[in-house]
């Protein structure tokens, strides 16, 4: 999969996000992160709790400000101070789906309001009739009945609530959707439904996704390319099958070895690799981010790069 001739919808370069710590040095949640997301693809971002994967998503939708680095949308910088028209465009075109549908919907508002809140905030409708039409259309698209508009979130199951979450993002007619662990709090049988819905919508509307997850088996199923993040740094980025077939960075390898497979014989014989950051000797040479083969990036110093190349040969 070559990305050179494809349009980069999102470009992130040297992104750094900090959080203030009272009376101390700021906590660096994300540092030196660079990647591009091409139009129409699903970009997976995998990492453990606290690795900064959600923070990257939130930096792109501009909830968390970037301390350094550049985030571009269709070639225009969107972080920092930007013109009003661009701000409006980004607010429309980049949307987010949140993790827990039990917590992310306003319990006191009806579905009609929850779904059209984005419309209200940006006055993105001509009149009341237009707004209602938009709500009905989007509810149908996510597989909910029109009469659900007058109900409250507590009347729905987890899967239906997540559909409301998707509808709320979709009504803004976005081009880029950040899905932050959209299925991890759902039941096994419902997960498949929501994954299928996301795929259908992508095909129908030509959406571009950033899929944030800690579940590698889901990412393997849905993503075209995957970035693995460890403690605020991306350590490896490659096409999904390339990454799963030949993981290079020791952290990626340990992460892949930990995925449970539904096969008792394989599971009993497998050995889980534990990642020990001290296996890198970065005292002489700091690691750099390099493309080791087409579309496959990894973080390492020259010595490690040579080893990785040997692995691929």
């Amino acid at each position, binding site marked *: 999969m070559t990305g050179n001739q494809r349009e980069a919808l999102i470009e992130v370069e040297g992104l750094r996000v900090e959080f203030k710590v009272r009376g101390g040095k700021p906590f660096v949640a994300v540092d030196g992160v660079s990647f591009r997301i091409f139009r129409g693809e699903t970009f997976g971002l995998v990492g453990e709790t606290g690795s900064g994967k959600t923070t990257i998503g939130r930096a792109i939708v501009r909830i968390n400000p970037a301390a350094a680095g550049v985030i571009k949308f269709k070639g225009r910088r969107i972080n920092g101070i930007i013109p009003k028209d661009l701000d409006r465009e980004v607010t429309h075109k980049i949307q987010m789906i949140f993790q827990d549908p039990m917590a992310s919907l306003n319990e006191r508002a009806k579905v009609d309001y929850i779904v059209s809140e984005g419309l209200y905030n940006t006055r993105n409708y001509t009149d009341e009739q237009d707004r209602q039409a938009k709500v009905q259309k989007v509810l149908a698209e996510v597989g909910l009945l029109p009469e659900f508009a007058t109900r409250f979130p507590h009347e729905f199951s987890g899967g239906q609530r997540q559909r409301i979450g998707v509808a709320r993002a979709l009504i803004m007619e976005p081009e880029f959707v950040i899905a932050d662990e959209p299925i991890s709090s759902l039941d*096994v049988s419902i997960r*498949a439904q929501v*994954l299928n819905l996301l795929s259908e919508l992508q095909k129908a509307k030509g959406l571009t996704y950033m899929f944030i997850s*800690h579940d590698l088996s889901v990412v393997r*199923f849905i993503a075209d390319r995957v970035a693995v993040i460890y403690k605020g740094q991306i350590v490896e980025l490659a096409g999904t099958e390339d990454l799963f077939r030949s993981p290079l960075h020791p952290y990626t390898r340990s992460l892949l070895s930990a995925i449970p497979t539904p096969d008792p014989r394989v599971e009993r014989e497998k050995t889980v690799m534990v990642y020990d950051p001290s296996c890198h000797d970065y005292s002489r040479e700091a690691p750099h981010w390099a493309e080791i083969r087409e579309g496959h990036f990894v973080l390492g110093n020259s010595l490690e790069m040579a080893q990785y190349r040997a692995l691929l040969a």
Partner: protein
Amino acid sequence: MSEPILSARDVVVKFSLRGQVLTAIREASLDLYEGESLAIVGESGCGKTVFTKTFIGMLDANGWVDSGSIMFEGKDLARFKTEREWLSIRGKKIATVFQDPMTALNPLRTIGMQIQEVLELHKGMSGVEAREHTVEILDQVGIRDPEVRYSHYPHEFSGGMRQRVVIAIAIACDPLILICDEPTTALDVTIQAQILELIRSLQRRLGLTLIYITHDLGVVANVADRVAVMYAGDIIEYGTAEEIFYNPQHPYTWALLSSLPQLGIKGKPLYSIKGTPPNLFSEIRGDAFAPRNPRALKIDFVERPPYFQVSPTHFARTWLLDPRAPKVEPPETIRAMQARYARRAV
């Protein structure tokens, strides 16, 4: 096979909720053999937690065992009434590891005290002896510097470490049976792998019998010798892990396996189970899964299937196994998976 260590027969559990009676467990039976690890799988709300709670007398106040028997060490646990009776079993003989290590510990007491309390109550230990034993147990569950960690509070531990502490509390009394209720659901994959490793090594070292409750079939493949699949308060299929994964028989087991993204084919929609689990307030006729099963037979809606034997260890509650039933092929994903396993075996 040896005699079961615990044997539940036709257990019915009911709850009274807002004046209505709900049947959560519908005549479920289960044998547990010494030293094995049995996984119970199913969607949320299928009754897997409620079922095992009857073994330790921890049903909520509005629930009760309506009929059936649970034989353990010659006693019928289903007839236990008083807290006194339960105290001789719960924690001592049958212990539980709960799902969320963030809420299972008391935030106001040091973890050392929380483990020691168990030893003092159940084993009559005290003072230095109890403390030394606590440190030993902490070491056993893989907590480094147990002497120092003894006097730390839960908030000073990470999620994986807290789960280790919860496991330490559970094994403090050398129980015979350890019930693990989704112990790794709240954890990261790498930590999950470590906790599973710990549970397996403890099981080997202490000779524990394990009941492992989960909805994650990958985890089941990792820990289980035998698997019981639950749906709507009933065990609809059980067998060895190999039998359930390589030769599933019940349409629900097929559906559960097919909806795994690991088995999905990229670019094609993932199999998803239509509809919702049955309403437990109303009486369920026939096979509870029939309304969601696209291949359901007519009889599935009328009469509840008995267990049909597939092998000496493998049983399934589906009319498809009746000799009179039409031949129904498992869905494509299952056949593809079986073909893959068969190829590998060669």
